[in-house]
């Protein structure tokens, strides 16, 4: 032991010891706060690409006519796997190209419907209207309908949608 506590430390020594104590406390406290703070902020953003889901075959589709498909997708929510149902509209050009659009209105998230009469998507909530290609025609929606990656499997002409 460098000194005994019988004699109180001199002023200079006292200051040095005080700085040492405060530094260690700050070091441990700061380190722990940094680790716990980052931990609380949440998981690393994972580059989740979504998975290809089958959405029927082109036999069920009419060229250039949006058809609604309800797909069941498994959503990973942290440690929880939820099964979500999602509606997508498939628009087939009659040949090899297919487009898929989410049925969720970009305004406040209601589900749009396809009105075959006037060939428009109409949102039941606040009067948003979209053209067959998803562009906004009328009403409050700020963006066109979200497009979803889609392709046709040439081997069995089934439609694959990435959700």
């Amino acid at each position, binding site marked *: 032991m460098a000194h005994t506590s019988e004699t109180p430390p001199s002023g200079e020594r006292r200051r040095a010891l005080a700085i*040492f104590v405060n530094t260690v406390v700050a070091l*441990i406290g700061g380190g722990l706060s940094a*680790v716990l703070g980052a931990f*609380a902020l*949440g998981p690393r953003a994972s580059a989740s690409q979504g998975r290809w889901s*089958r959405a029927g075959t082109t036999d069920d589709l009419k060229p250039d006519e949006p058809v609604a498909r309800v797909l069941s997708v*498994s959503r990973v929510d*942290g*440690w929880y796997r939820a099964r979500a149902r999602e509606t997508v509209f498939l628009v087939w050009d009659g040949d090899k190209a297919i487009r898929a659009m989410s049925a969720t209105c970009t305004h406040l998230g209601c589900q749009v419907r396809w009105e075959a009469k006037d060939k428009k998507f109409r949102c039941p909530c606040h009067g948003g209207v979209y053209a067959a290609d998803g562009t906004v025609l009328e009403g409050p929606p700020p963006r066109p309908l979200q497009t979803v990656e889609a392709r046709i499997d040439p081997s069995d002409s089934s439609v694959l949608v990435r959700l």
Partner: protein
Amino acid sequence: MKRLFEWLHARTGYRGAVHVMLDEPLPPGTGWFFTLGSVLLALLSIQLLTGAFLTLYYAASPDHAYDSVRFINAVRFGAIVRGLHHYGASFIVVAMVAHMLRVIAFGSYKPPREVTWLSGLALLGLILGFALTGYLLPWDQRAYWATVVTINISKLTPLAGEMVAGVLRGGSTIGALTLTRWYSAHVIFLPAGLVLLIVGHLFLMRRQGISGPVRARSGSPSAFFPSQAARDVTMVLLVVTVLAAYAWHGAPPLEGPADPTDATYIPRPEWYFLGLFQLLKYFPGKWEVVGAMAVPGLAAGFLALLPWLDRGPDRDPRQRRVIVSAVAIGVASVIALTTLGWRDRPLSAASRDTWTLREIGGRVFAQRLNCTRCHSETGLADPLEGGPSTRGPEWIAGHIVDPEMIAPGMREPPAAIHEREAAAVAAYARRAARDAYPGSSQTVEMVAPIWARYCVGCHKIEGDGGTDGPDLTREGTKHDAATLRRWIVDPEQVDANAEMPAFGDRLNAAQLDAISTYLAARK
């Protein structure tokens, strides 16, 4: 800045509190031995903090606990936070024992500090309660089986055994109710008790003053800050650095999800309970209660009564040989038992690296039964291979027999499935979650489903299967393929006393050829 503190002091008088906390008068000669309490306090604070933060992601349900703990490892710094909490528990046990031995060696429990000593013992009990309840929370194999053992030991409690076990278990089996109960204890009741007791323990420590060196030295008391505080934080820094190194080194172990049906799992307690675990081995049968209850109970009673057993005024250990040697013998026994328990570990049967026939058979069934229609890269469900499964075995078994029950919305209900096929698929699912399929020859893939469907109930190969019939691991050394084929077709044709049923009408010629050739080749 200075003015801000002045203002704060004028409004709160905080400097008084700081003065009370830091300028505690210490007897002359207080030194490094008296830093252990601070180390313990620091470790407990870290434990309380990391534990509070872990609850951000933890879910106390048998379906999700394991997933959520595994998820924590994926969160930024998650493995480190878990590591600090997991290894911190062990550090606390060590620091606590060191602190207690220091108190015993210095005779610090002598009047007027008997109640301080008792509150310390109560803290020790609480901390062991934390260790026990926290162990279950990850809901992995270790957690589950350690709890099975603990609850079975609690049944040995005289008179109220079943009641104690029932209270610990919550429900009729170890499951959801046990988990929520132990979780509540771990994060609410025990911490509340711990904080109260620590406050009481520190209050008493300050009220009596610390005991100081065994022989009072001359000189006036000195303040805690900064000399003793510097010693305390040096020790704390040392211990926390080692703890951080452990946590940094990697996430604490997490085994497979709890599987109550796994007969191959060998439960082992955490190291600080190994001594007790070993002790039980010396008290077989009806004497078990001696090892489980009487010996630990006597030890606890001895510790609680120490201030009254050790009545002399002298605190110097050299003048208290009987007590000091009794404690030394106790410590030596605990160390010896722990070492014996550590070394006495059976080889794990779970370390097989080849797939069993049943698992391979399960893979074949899974394909035949169209499991892969949904469980594929493009399907609704996760692929069966290449990703860890976090579902418990009952869930998997229930799902195989009736996928619709657990995954509603399946369009075609599957064909009825034989229970052995379901068991094989479950074995396969468990295996595929751990290891990639190494591939097998066509013969093996032909034989495996036959084996898993018809043979495995009574026969064993390489440790997997039933025990009613002989072990067929090295059947080729006893019989050739032709004999085996005749035997399988109709055992009574070969031996009139045979008990095995005939399989001639259940297997086709190709299957009979395959299984008999396969068995004959096992030498």
